[in-house]
C-alpha cells in the first residue's frame, strides 16, 4: 500500500516540477507560423492595398462622376456620406492599418536584418503610398501613435504631419532601392512581388512617382509647393508604359478575384456618367475619343446594324430610366438592365475577374509633370509632357482593353484614330494649352481606377474652379449634383474614418478634430486649402 501511495506522490511531483513546464508549453499556434520568409508577406499586402483602393472607389467614383447610379437620388451621387454606422469608405483604412500594418513592419524588419535592401525599399514605398492615400481620403489620421504596443486609444495627426512622413519615407525607399549590396535579389523578391516581379529599378521609379504625386498634391500651398521638385521627381520616375504598376488576379473565387470583376458583382449598378460620356463622345472636347469603345459600356441599341455604337451617360441622381430601355447603358460587366455579374461573365474594360488593375502609370505621371510645368509657366515642358501623356494613355488603353467583352468584341485603336485624336486635343502651340486640357486628359486616363488621385485633383480645384484666366471650368462640363441633406449645402471633401475602427472604439480622439459632426465629410482637407 505504501508503495502505491509513494508512486502516486512521486508521479504527481514529477508532473508538477520537471515535466510540467514542457508539458504545458503547447500554446504556440500550430495553425500558422509566427514568422515567415520576407517575400511571403508582400503578395497579400499588395492585393489588400489594391482591394482597399478599389473598394473605396465604389464610393469616391460617384463623387468624381466617373459613374452614376442606375436609380434616382443615390446617396453617393448626392455627394453624401456612407450611413453613419457603415464601414463603407473605410477599406483603405483597413488595408493600411491592418492588412499592411504589422505585416509591413515585420517584412521591413526581417529584410533589414537579412540585408534585402530591395524589399526594405519596397516596404517603405508601400508605407509612404498607404499613408498618403489614407490622409487624402480621410484628412487627419493616426500616424505617430499607430502600432504602438500597449496603446488602445490613438490621437490623430494632421495632414501636414502625414505629408512630411510620406516624403521622408519616399526618400528612405529611394535610398534603399538604390542599393545593390547585401543580398538584393529579384528572384527572391519576385516570388512575392505581384507588381514588378522583384524589379528593383521599377520600384525605385515607383517610389519617385509616389513622391511626385505627393509634392504635386500640395499645389494650393504657396509656401510648400515647388513645381521644379515635382518635375524632377517625375523625371526620375517611370519612363514609359512598361514601367506601369499593374496588379493581376487569379479570378476564380471571391477571395482572389478582381474586386471590380463580375464575380464580385460590386459594380452592378454603376453606369457611365453623363460627364464622362460627354468627354469621350466629342460633346465637350469636339473630338471623339477612340478610347470610348474600350472604356465606356455602350447601350444595347443597334444603330445601322452596328452593336455598341450608341452611348448614354447617366446624369447623377436621375438614374437610367430617363432613357428608353434600349438606350440605357450596359453596366461595366457589359450586361443590359444592370444585370448581375457572375464568374462566367467576361466583363468589360477594367471590370474583369482576372483583369489587370493599374495602380500608377507613366501617362499619369506625365500629366502631373504637365500640370507642374504649366503652373511654373514653363508651357513648353508642359505641352511636351501633356502630349506624351495623351499618346501613352491611348496606347495604354488600346493594348490593355481591346478584345472580347460580354456584349461583343472591341478592337484596338488604329494608328489613324490615334493621330486624328491627338490632332484634336494636343494644341500645336503651347500657348493654346490649358490647365483644363491637362486635367481632363488625366481624368480620362485615370477613369475608374485612379479614383483616389482623381478625387484629390477635383478637390484641389474645388470641383468647379476655373484656372487663372481660362474661360472654361477646369473640369469642363462637370455639373455639381444636388447635395444630400446631411451635407448642409456643402460638397464632400473627406470620408469619415472607418466606423468600426474609430467611431466605436476611438471616438474620444475624434472629438478634437471635429469628427463627430454629422457634416464632418464636408470639412475641407488641409491638402487643398489654399495658403
Amino acid at each position, binding site marked *: *500500500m505504501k508503495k*502505491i*501511495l509513494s508512486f*502516486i506522490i512521486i508521479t*504527481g511531483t514529477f*508532473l*508538477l516540477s520537471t515535466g*510540467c*513546464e514542457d*508539458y*504545458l*508549453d*503547447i*500554446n*504556440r*499556434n*500550430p*495553425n*500558422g*507560423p*509566427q*514568422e*515567415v520568409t520576407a517575400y*511571403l*508577406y*508582400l*503578395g*497579400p*499586402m499588395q*492585393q*489588400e492595398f489594391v482591394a482597399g483602393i478599389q473598394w473605396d472607389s465604389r464610393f469616391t467614383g460617384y463623387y468624381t462622376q466617373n459613374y452614376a447610379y442606375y436609380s434616382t437620388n443615390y446617396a453617393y451621387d448626392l455627394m453624401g456620406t456612407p450611413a453613419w*454606422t457603415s464601414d463603407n469608405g473605410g477599406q483603405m483604412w483597413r488595408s493600411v*492599418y*491592418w492588412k499592411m*500594418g*504589422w*505585416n509591413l513592419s515585420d517584412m521591413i524588419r526581417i529584410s533589414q536584418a537579412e540585408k534585402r535592401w530591395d524589399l526594405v525599399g519596397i516596404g517603405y514605398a508601400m508605407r509612404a503610398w498607404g499613408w498618403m492615400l489614407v490622409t487624402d481620403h480621410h484628412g487627419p489620421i*493616426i500616424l505617430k*501613435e499607430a502600432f504602438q504596443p500597449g*496603446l*488602445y*486609444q*490613438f490621437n490623430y495627426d494632421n495632414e501636414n504631419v502625414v505629408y512630411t512622413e510620406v516624403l521622408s519615407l519616399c526618400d528612405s525607399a529611394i535610398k534603399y532601392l538604390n542599393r545593390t549590396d547585401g543580398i538584393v535579389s529579384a528572384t527572391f523578391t519576385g516570388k*512575392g512581388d*505581384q507588381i514588378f516581379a522583384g524589379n528593383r529599378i521599377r520600384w525605385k521609379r515607383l517610389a519617385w512617382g509616389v513622391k511626385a504625386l505627393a509634392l504635386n498634391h500640395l499645389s494650393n500651398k504657396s509656401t510648400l509647393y515647388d513645381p521644379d521638385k515635382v518635375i524632377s521627381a517625375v523625371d526620375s520616375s517611370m519612363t514609359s508604359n512598361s514601367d506601369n504598376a499593374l496588379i*493581376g488576379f*487569379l479570378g*476564380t*473565387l*471571391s*477571395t*482572389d478575384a478582381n474586386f471590380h470583376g463580375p464575380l464580385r*458583382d460590386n459594380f452592378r449598378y454603376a453606369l457611365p456618367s453623363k460627364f464622362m460620356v460627354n468627354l469621350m463622345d466629342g460633346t465637350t472636347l469636339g473630338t471623339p475619343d477612340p478610347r470610348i469603345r474600350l472604356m465606356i459600356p455602350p447601350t444595347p441599341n443597334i444603330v445601322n446594324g452596328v452593336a455598341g455604337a450608341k452611348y448614354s451617360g447617366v446624369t447623377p441622381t436621375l438614374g437610367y430610366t430617363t432613357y428608353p430601355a434600349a438606350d440605357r447603358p450596359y453596366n461595366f460587366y457589359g450586361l443590359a438592365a444592370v444585370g448581375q455579374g457572375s*464568374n462566367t461573365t467576361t466583363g468589360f474594360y477594367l471590370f474583369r475577374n482576372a483583369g489587370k488593375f493599374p495602380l500608377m502609370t507613366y501617362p499619369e505621371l506625365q500629366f502631373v509633370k504637365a500640370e507642374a510645368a504649366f503652373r511654373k509657366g514653363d508651357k513648353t515642358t508642359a505641352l511636351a509632357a501633356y502630349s506624351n501623356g495623351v499618346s501613352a494613355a491611348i496606347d495604354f488603353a488600346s493594348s490593355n482593353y481591346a478584345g472580347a467583352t460580354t456584349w461583343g468584341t472591341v478592337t484596338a485603336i488604329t494608328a489613324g484614330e490615334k493621330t486624328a485624336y491627338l490632332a484634336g486635343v494636343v494644341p500645336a502651340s503651347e500657348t493654346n494649352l490649358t490647365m483644363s486640357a491637362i486635367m481632363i486628359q488625366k481624368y480620362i486616363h485615370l477613369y475608374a481606377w485612379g479614383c483616389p488621385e482623381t478625387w484629390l485633383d477635383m478637390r484641389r480645384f474645388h470641383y468647379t474652379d476655373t484656372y487663372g484666366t481660362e474661360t472654361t471650368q477646369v473640369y469642363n462640363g462637370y455639373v455639381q449634383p444636388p447635395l444630400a*441633406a446631411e451635407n448642409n449645402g456643402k460638397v464632400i471633401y473627406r470620408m469619415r474614418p472607418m466606423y468600426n*475602427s*474609430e467611431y*466605436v*472604439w476611438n471616438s*474620444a480622439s475624434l472629438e478634437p478634430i471635429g469628427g463627430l459632426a454629422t457634416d464632418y465629410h464636408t470639412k475641407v482637407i488641409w491638402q487643398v486649402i489654399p495658403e
Partner: protein
Amino acid sequence: MLFQPAAAQTKTVTGFVIDASTNEGLPGVNVVAKGTSIGAITRADGSFTLNNVNQGQVLVFTFIGYLAKEVTVGEANRLEVNLSPDILSVGEVIVTALGIKEERKNLGTAVTEVKGNDVIQTQRINFVDALQGRVAGMTINQSSGLPGASSQVVIRGISSLSQSNEPLYIVDGLPYNNRTFTTNSLASATISGPSLENRYTDFTNRAADINPDDIESVTVLKGPEATSLYGVDASNGAIIITTKRGKAGTSRINYSNSFSIVKIIKYPDIQRVYGQGNYGMTDNTSFNYFGEAYASDSVLYNNIKPFFHNGFTQRHNLSMDGGTDKVSYRVSMGFNDVGAVIDGAGQRKINLSNALHGTLNKWLNYDFSLAYTNDFVDGVFKSTYGPMIGLLRWPSGDDAENYLNPDGTRRKLSTSSSEFDNPYFNVNKNDYWTKTNRLTNVTSLNINPTEWLLVVGKVGFDFYSNQNYILRHPESNLAYSYGGMLDDAVANNRSLNIEYYANFKKEFGGLNVDVKAGSTVYDYSYKSVAGFGQGFLDPNFASLNNIPPDKQRTRSVLQQRRVVGVFGVINLNYNRFLNVQLTARNDWSSTLPLDNNSFAYPGANFALILSEIPYFKNFSWLSLAKIRGAYGMARKDPPPYGVYPALESQATTGGGYAYGFTGPNPLLTAEKTTSKEAGIEVRLFRSRIGLDATYYKKESVDQIISNLRLSYGTGYVLSVMNGGTMWNSGLELQLNLVPVDKVDFKWELMANFNKMWSKLTYLPTGLKEFYNSDTWIYGNTRNGAITGESTTTLSGLRYLRNNNGDILINPQNGTPVRNTVWEAIGDRNPDFTLGIINRFNYKNLELSMLIDTRRGGDVLNATEHMLVTTGLSNQTLNRYEPVVVKGVLQDGLENTANPTVNNIQIIPALNSGYYYSNIAEEDFVEKDVNWIRMKDITLSYNVPKSLLASKAKFVKGFSVFVTATDLFLITNYTGLDPVILGNNAAVLGSGSAGMDYGNFPLPLGVNFGFKVGF
C-alpha cells in the same frame, strides 16, 4: 399461559416492495408490523414474506432515502407497496465534486439532484432539455424545435462576456466534452461570402450524446463555491452525471420503447391582401409586399400550413444487468429515430454502453465503463438562410409546394437575384448533415487498505469524430452565383483525463476529520480538416472531388489545451451538527503565458444543522433545520493561442501570409470570479414541508475578453485582453410539499423559484459596449453588453430623441431619425422563473408534470420586424391610412422649450421607406414576456406485481405510459416561441437567447410506450 390469538386471525403475508420511481423491486427494505417485533427485509427482487401478522395490523415499510409508508393488512395475502424516493430525505446521499458521495445535509452549498428516472420520463432525446425547470438558477435554451438542436445551459447567469458560460459536464467522475461544432472550422470560414458565421447552421451540443436511459442521477453544482475542486472548467457550474450500474442479484432484462408524434401548434401568419411590389406598385420581381391589392379573383395559397407535417419518432432501449456481490455488469443499447415537423430534418442515434463494477479483494475495487454513440442529424439552415424565412417571404399568389420545373430544375418566379429560396427547395435540395461517432471510457480504482485511508484513481478518454457536410445546391439562391457550394469537414475531439486523490478519515471524539488531496491532468486536443469548394463540374454530383482544383480551399485547425491541477479539501464534522469544509486548488494551464500560468483558488463552506443539536431534537415536527454559507473562487484561462502572434495563410491571389484579426497579448492572466452564497433549509412534519433558500452574489474581474474590437491603430482588428468587471446575484427558492400522503393516494409538489440580478460595471479602454458579432443575425441588433446595464442586454440603434425623450423626425420626409450609437434596447433577464413539478400517485397510476413559467424578460421578435418591413405583417394592412409619426422635428429647435411638433402626414403604403428604413428594432423587442409552458406531463400505469406473478411469472415488471412534451404554451409573446436561440450553442458570452428570427418553435410531442422487465 399466554393468550393465543385465534389461528384464523393470523396469516402469512407476502408481497413486493417497488421503487415507485423505477418500477423495480427494492431490496433491503425494512418491513415491520407496527408495535411488534415481527419483521423482515426484502430480498434482491423486492419480495418479502411476513409470518404471523393479523388483519388490521399496520405494516411499516422503511428504507433510507425513501419516504416511509404504512399499510394496513387487509383481507388479501399479497401486498404490493410502492416506496417513493424521498426527494427531501435528510439522510440522502448525493454525488458532489470529485464524485464523492456526501450526505446532503452536510453540504454547505446549494446542490440539486435530478433522478435519472425523471430525466427518462420526459422522453427528451437530448437529456439536457429535461432539466429545464427542475433546477433553480439553471436556464436551458434550445437553438430550434428541430431534431439535433443544440441546447445552451446557463447556471446562475452570465459570468463571462466572451467565453463560454456553459457548465462542465462530468460523467462517472471525469469531464465529458460538450463542445458545439463551430463554423470557424469550416474551410468556407475564410471566404467572406460563403462564410456561415455560426448564424445559418446548427450543430448539436455534444453532451447530448449521453443516452438518457443510462443516467442514474444528475447533480447540479451551481457556483464556484461548489465546483472549485473541479478546477478551471467548472467556473460556470458543473453537471455531474452518474450512470447506471448493475445490481447484485439475479440478472434482469429491461426493455422500453416509445412512439411519438410531434406537431406544430402555432403557425406564423402573414397578410394576403397586398401583393408583391413597392410604393404601392406591383412588381413581381420584388419579394416585398407593398404592391397593389390582390385582385378579388386571384387564386391565393396558404403556403404556410401545408409546409408542416407531423413527425414520427420511435425509441427503443434494451438493457441487461446483474451480477454477484463480487462483480456486477450492465449492458445497454438505445435506438432513436427522430422525426421532425418539416422535411429535411431528422435524427438517428444509437447508444451502446457497458459498465462493470467489481471487487478484487477486500481493499481493492474497480469500476469500468465504456459508452459508444453514433449520431446522425439531418439539419436545415437557420435564420436568414432558413426555410422559415423563405416560407414567409414566398408570394401567396404562388403555390410553394410546386418548387420544381417538370425537368427537375428549380422553379424560379423571377430573374431577380434577391428571390428567396423556395422553402421546399431549401429543405429538399440543400443537404446538411452531421455524423458523430463517440467513444468514452472511465476506469477507476478504489484502494481501501485501512479504515481511515482511501485512494482513488481514475483514467478516462473521451474521443469523438464529427463529419459535417453542408451542401448549398447549385440552383439554390444561396449558391447559384457560385455554382453550388460544399463544405465537408471532419473534426476530431480527444480528451485524456486523469484524476487521483487520497482520502484520510478519522474520528476524534465528536469530530470527524476527512482530508482529501490529489491531482488532475486534463489534456484536450481538437483537430479538424475541412474542404470547401464551389462550382460543381457536374451539378448533380455534390462532392469535393467534383470541383475544379482552383475552386477548392482547405482549412486545418488544431487546438490543444492542457490543464494540470492539484487540490486539497479538509472536511470537519463536529457532532453531526456542524460541518466545515475548506478547499484549495491550483491549476497550471497551457493557454497562459508560461511564466504566469499558475493560479490558485480557495473555497470554504459550512453547514450548521440545528436539528441535530440535542435541544432541537425534541421537536418531532422539525425534520431538518440548517444554515449554510459558502465562499469560493473560480478562475478561467483564456482560449488557446492568445499569447503569441501567429500568421495566417492568405487566400488572396498568389497566397502568402499575414496576421489574422486578433493581436497577441503576452500579458494575459486568468480571469477571476469570487462567489458567496448563504442559505437556509427547513423541513417540517417528517419532511412533508420543505423550504430551501439560497442567496448568492458573484463578482468577476479581469474578464478575458476575446474578439474585443479595437481601433485599427493597433495594427489589428480584435484583441484578447483582461478587463471587464461584472457581478451576478440571485435568489433561489425550492419549496417541497407533500399535501396528501395516503396509502393509495399521494401528491408531491416541488417548486423552484429563481430571480437574478446582474450588472456589467466596467469595460476596458473606455469601451461602452461589448458584443459577439455572430449574434448580429438581424438588422441593427445584437447581444451587446453595455457598461452600467445588466449582462443580458440586447443592443440596437434606437430612435434619436431630444432631451425630453421625444422621437426626432426628419423635417424633409416626416419619418423618424435613428441614433448611431448602440444602446440597450432590451434585457433578456426575466424578473423570475418558476418551475413547478407535481406528482400524483393513485394505486398503480402515476401522473407527473412539470410546468415551466417565467415572468418578465424581453424577447426580440425580429421575425415580426422583417414581416413589417417587407409588408407581410398584418400590422401593415392599414398602410393606406395617413399617419403622422409622433415626435418633434429635427430642425434645430428640438431641444428648445418649444420644439416643432411633427405634423407631416405620410401614407405608409406609398412610402415603403416608412416601414423599411425607419421602424426601429426597438419597437419589436417585446417587453416583459411571460409564459406558462407545460414542459412535460406523464401518465403511467404499473401493472401490479401480484398480477404479473400470477399471470406471467417471468415478467418482473410492466408499465405503460403516455407523455406529452411542450403540450401547451400560454404567453403574451406574439411570435412563435420565445425560448429559441438566435444562433446555436457554439456562440459564446451571453449568447443569443431571446433573439427570435425565423426560428422553429418547440413542437408538441405525444409519446406512448411501455416498459417491461424480465
